């Protein structure tokens, strides 16, 4: 009972945070609304035995949204949110499409005959996950690591103003 109350409170807060992202006037506030939404989902994961992944989502999203806030302040056009801000195109179309997608998903959720539960959660699902990614699922871990490395390199290459070998003009020491 207490779990159900906690879940619904978190679910409503998560969706409300998500809606707030596109309603508030300032992009900095939108970032923190997104953070609230992520924290609620992270806590909801804790309710279903996912202790490690829930905490991982919470910690990672706190850091990610702090970084995001910096970028938001770099790119935002309405810093403090003193003026009403609407920066949307095709508002009606987007609302219709997302409403239709939501209706379709809800219909699918309640009409699909979900299979019965197979197995029970291990006593320590985190240990299960650790043994899995260091054992039979190690390829996943390796691919994830490689993807992170590739992202680091390509993000720096894209975002850097100029490369190590770009010079202004012909002089070898030109800067």
């Amino acid at each position: 009972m207490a779990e159900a109350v906690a879940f619904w409170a978190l679910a409503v807060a998560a969706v409300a945070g998500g809606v707030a992202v596109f309603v508030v006037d300032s992009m900095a506030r939108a970032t923190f609304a997104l953070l609230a939404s992520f924290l609620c989902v992270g806590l909801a994961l804790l309710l279903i035995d996912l202790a490690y992944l829930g905490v991982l989502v919470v910690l990672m999203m706190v850091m990610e949204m702090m970084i995001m806030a910096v970028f938001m302040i770099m790119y935002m056009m309405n810093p403090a949110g003193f003026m009403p801000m609407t920066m949307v195109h095709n508002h009606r179309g987007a609302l219709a499409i997302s409403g239709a997608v939501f209706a379709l998903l809800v219909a699918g959720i309640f009409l699909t005959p979900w299979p019965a539960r197979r197995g029970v959660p291990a006593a320590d699902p985190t240990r299960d996950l650790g043994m899995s990614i260091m054992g039979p699922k190690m390829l996943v871990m390796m691919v994830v690591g490689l993807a992170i490395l590739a992202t680091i390199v390509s993000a720096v290459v894209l975002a850097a103003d100029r490369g190590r070998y770009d010079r202004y003009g012909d002089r070898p020491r030109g800067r």
Partner: protein
Amino acid sequence: MGLEAYLLLAAALFAVGLYGALSQQSVVMLMMGLELMINGLLAAGAAFWYFLAPGTADGQVLLLVVITVMALEMAMGFAVVTAIFRARDVDTTDDAGDLKG
């Protein structure tokens, strides 16, 4: 509280994110919509693991991949925004329609 409840949360988050991704003009706000959609996927994936197949860790491994993808998407998105902003002073999606078919 069961599988349907978690999937309902996931569907709501996904729909709100989809609205943002389709309607926002600012590229960074569009990326927040994408993040919100992945947030929904997280809730759905966790529910599928716990309520349908908790016997193995496969679902958890998938969630780990989703969380990684979320962070990588953010990093690459901001890199692309920075690159296009440097090159052309563009920070809205309407001005970045080069790939429009």
